[in-house]
Each structure stands twice: as C-alpha cells, then as structure tokens.
C-alpha cells in the first residue's frame, strides 16, 4: 500500500529514547507506529492485530536498573543476525574529522574510489580515442 508524503507534524511521532547520541535520528524507538488513516482501516487493523500487538504500555514502567531498555529488536532469541552494530557505526560515522562521507571508512573507501575513477576516466579517454578512430573515413 502506498503512503503519501508525511506532513511535518509527523516529527512528533518519532520518539527519542534518550540513549541515542544523535538527536536527528531515532534508532531505538520501540513504540509501534500507527499510520494516520481512515477509521475503517484502523478498526480493521485492530481486529486482526489484537492478538499480535506487543504488550507495551504507553507510560514507562518503573525502571529496575537490571532491566535493559527495550530496543526495537530482541537480540536474545535470534542470533542468526548477529548483534546490532548500528550504534557503534553511528558513533564512527559521526566523528568530525572533516573527511567526506565517501571516504570516511579510510582505506577500503579510498581503494574503491580510486578504482572507480580510474576505470571511468580511463574508459572515457579510451572511448574518445575509439570514437575519433571510428570517425576516420575507411580507405576502400
């Protein structure tokens, strides 16, 4: 189903869990998002998802320090995906070292960039030579 462009009021729907270092991007929100839609659709969705809805109250439960904050993914039961590396990647890519985004990872980025540039620019020069040669009249 298609969703139209969100109005700027959608800002308020994105919740900040507080542990995220970057205020612009909320990765760890666990509140399920209800899209604004017709009442019929909402009722339809409610009827069919009542049994599937996660049991989450809208107020924060009394926090016990031993209980971790609930992330959007439960990593305990599903180990096949590995652990969530996004927070550390966020910290890594947000380092203000002045390096542009396409080179931020260092050596592997540089190698790939140089290969791409060499192939495209080299290819273009080859192409121009080939086109020049192709445009020469053939001797019969």
């Amino acid at each position, binding site marked *: *189903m*298609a*969703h*139209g*462009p*969100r109005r*700027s009021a959608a800002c308020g*729907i*994105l*919740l900040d869990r507080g542990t995220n270092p*970057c*205020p*612009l*991007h*909320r*990765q*760890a*929100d*666990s*509140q*399920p*998002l209800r*899209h604004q839609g017709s009442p019929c659709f909402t009722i339809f*969705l409610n009827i069919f*998802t009542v049994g*599937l*809805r*996660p049991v989450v109250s809208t107020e924060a439960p009394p926090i016990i320090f031993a209980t971790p904050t609930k992330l*959007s*993914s*439960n990593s305990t039961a*599903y180990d096949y*995906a590995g652990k*969530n*590396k*996004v927070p550390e*990647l*966020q910290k*890594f*890519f*947000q380092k203000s070292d002045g390096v*542009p*985004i*396409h080179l*931020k990872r260092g050596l592997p980025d540089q190698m*790939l*960039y140089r*290969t*791409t*540039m060499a*192939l*495209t*620019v080299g*290819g*273009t020069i*080859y*192409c121009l030579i*080939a*086109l020049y040669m*192709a445009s020469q009249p053939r001797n019969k």
Partner: protein
Amino acid sequence: MTHQTHSYHMVNPSPWPLTGALSAFLMTSGLIMWFHFNSMILLTLSFLTNTLTMYQWWRDIIRESTFQGHHTPTVQKGLRYGMVLFILSEVLFFTGFFWAFYHSSLAPTPELGGSWPPMGIHPLNPLELPLLNTSVLLASGVSITWAHHSLMEGDRKHVLQALLITIMLGFYFTLLQVSEYYEAPFTISDGIYGSTFFVTTGFHGLHVIIGSTFLIICFMRQMMFHFTSGHHFGFEAAAWYWHFVDVVWLFLYVSIYWWGS
C-alpha cells in the same frame, strides 16, 4: 561552532554524479562499438563502472541517513516526492510501449492479415503460465504488505520472513518468464507482434529484476538493524516500486496476453 539552523541536508561533495555520467557515456558509446564494430570492451566497462557508482552512491546515502542522522522528516518528504516522480516517469515509459501495442493491434494492417493476433502467430494461452505469473506477483504484493505491517509493529522475525517470501516469489516469476521466453513459438523478429510482445514484457522483466534487487538490499539492511518501526523509507520506496511492477504486469496480462490473444 557552526550548526545548521535548517532541517535540510547539505551533502558532502561527492564524485559519484561524475562517475555515473561518465559511465552513461561509456554505455552509449559501448553500444555503438558493439553494434557497429563488434567490440564489447566499452560496454562491459560501462556496466562495471555503473555498478560501482550505484553501489557507492547508495552506500553513502545509507551512511548519511542511518549512521549520521541527516534524514530529517523534511529530507524524507523530499525523498518521497522524488520516488513518486521517478515511478511516475517509469509509468510514462511503459505507456509508450502500450501505446505502440494498441496502435498496431486496434487497427491491424493488411500485411498482418487484417487480424490480431496476426496471421501465422500462435499466441500463448493466457490461462496457462501467464495466469500463474499473475498469481505469483499478486501474492508477492500481499507478502510485502505483511512485511511492512510487521516492520511497523517492530516484529523483526516476520519482517525477514515476509521479505524473503516476496523475494522468492519475484525470483519464481523471473524463472517462469525465462522458461516462457524459451518455449514461445514466436520471436522478437516476428513482425510487430513479436516486437511489442518481447520489448514490453522484456522491460517489465528487467524491472522485476531491479525490484527484486532493491528488496534484497532491504532484506540485508533489516538483518543489520537499519530500519526502525517509525523510520524505514528505503523499505517503503522498495515496496512502492514493487507494487508498480505488479500493476504494470496486470496491464500487460490484460492487454497483451488476454485481449491480444
């Protein structure tokens, strides 16, 4: 300290528009070299550089959004408009080929025997493989909607399951079409029937492959925890594209396979 006082994204200078443009130049010149001089070097090089550009460009967008947080609601709105306009341009692209089909089939010339399908053409039975293909794509539309709702509810396992089903259905469709192409009793050079059939279904098949690739990327990103229940525009864009591919097939099926047989 300099901080922006607006919610737009001022992108770092990037080399990918240049490499993308150059790869397009290599592709067009490569086609000339292939058609006229029997050389595939340039064409192969162009596909390679194009793929490298796409990989790095979209990799950078993921870095800017998921890792750096630049995709504010304002930015996301722009991306939504962009995707809608792109899909609209693709709709117009297909409209051209459907126009060509209807132009030829509504008023068949005497050279065709004054009939559609033309004299001597044995069209495919619309109730056999093409109907199966229709059900496969419709089912994939259901599964991707299931994936989306699971994503909105934070149900990680089911997002992966439903996405996988969608991708597999996409592959199944592609395989069925390949076998249909192999078995078809007519070819692309069989007059205007062959041309309209294979060019339209061929471009559609290419879009299925592109859509499947997009879905695979979404699957990998979901594995890596990139999407949240409230912010997953990459997934939505893939879902929109997939539904578009499905709708084009429905038009194809009704017009070319069914009405045109």
